[in-house]
């Protein structure tokens, strides 16, 4: 499988993603400059974490005007896997490829720590190797990760099973205490209705090897490879 990792001016996790894909899960990967306009050769595209355009105006707000985003929207429209991590998630919501928005953390602080995610929807291309309820230990690192959507949108994504990950306790309970940033319904990651676009605030790219404190993030990338292999004729 061939993965692409988009670099915006201000991205800073592109090498983490590149390393995870090439060295940890052994797939082909290439960087994609934000001014590139073709994604034809890729099976999956990752929008990495960082501070694209310095987070000026709003997180992700200016990145959505990068030339590559038109290609990303076309790629997603044709069913290609598009995975936004942290700032990548913020960019996908700004670009309208995922519903909702990411507000400032309720405590206003930038948060950088390991926490637990509960897998809410198995069987998406990103959770194809997981079971519902499976706990993942994955770190966050963000100041604007407070997921918000209006009541109708929230109901729709909940009813459609588009909530893929929720912040949970170590025992898998969804409580206010487990919610680091004020996200509605403890939402940490969602997919679009077609399930080929995932955005999540936590960083699986920073938790792909035991040496880093957890290898649970690897499951997401491996699920993508598994799903891509199944979808091939």
């Amino acid at each position, binding site marked *: 499988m061939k993965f692409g990792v988009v670099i915006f001016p201000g991205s800073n996790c592109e090498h983490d993603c590149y390393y995870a894909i090439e060295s940890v899960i052994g797939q082909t990967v290439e960087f994609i400059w934000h001014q590139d306009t073709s994604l034809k050769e890729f099976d999956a595209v990752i929008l990495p974490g960082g501070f694209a355009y310095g987070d000026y105006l709003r997180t992700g707000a200016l990145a959505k005007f990068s030339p590559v985003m038109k290609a990303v929207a076309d790629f997603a429209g044709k069913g290609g896997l598009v995975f936004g991590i942290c700032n990548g998630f913020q960019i996908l919501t700004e670009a309208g490829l995922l519903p909702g928005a990411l507000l400032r953390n309720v405590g206003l602080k930038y948060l950088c720590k390991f926490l637990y995610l509960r897998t809410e929807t198995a069987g998406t291309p990103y959770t194809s190797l997981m079971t519902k309820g499976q706990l993942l230990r994955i770190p966050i690192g963000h100041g604007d990760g407070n997921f918000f*959507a209006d009541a109708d949108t929230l109901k729709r994504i909940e009813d459609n099973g588009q909530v893929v990950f929720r912040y949970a306790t170590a025992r898998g309970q969804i409580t206010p205490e487990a919610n680091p940033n004020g996200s509605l319904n403890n939402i940490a990651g969602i997919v679009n209705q077609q399930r080929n676009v995932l955005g999540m605030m936590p960083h699986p790219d920073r938790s792909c090897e035991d040496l880093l404190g957890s290898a649970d993030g690897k499951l997401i990338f491996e699920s993508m490879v598994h799903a891509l292999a199944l979808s091939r004729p």
Partner: protein
Amino acid sequence: MKATVIVTLKPTVLDPQGMTIHRSLASLGLSDIADVRQGKIFHIRLKEGLSTERTREQVERLAKEVLTNPVIEEYRIIWGE
């Protein structure tokens, strides 16, 4: 021609920054302030000689498509000069 665009979070959206500012006011003795909402202000200057129609179209597109995220924010425009 100038215009000012004011962008604020929708009333239904929680404003953690405004809340924090509000909470800190008690220690200043500003006990009559009931609420604080934080927003952004943009001062726009247009090129000379544009028609009113063109001016409105440009500023409204800027406010709507760039300065505001319609999921969480709303804007209003104050036309100057």
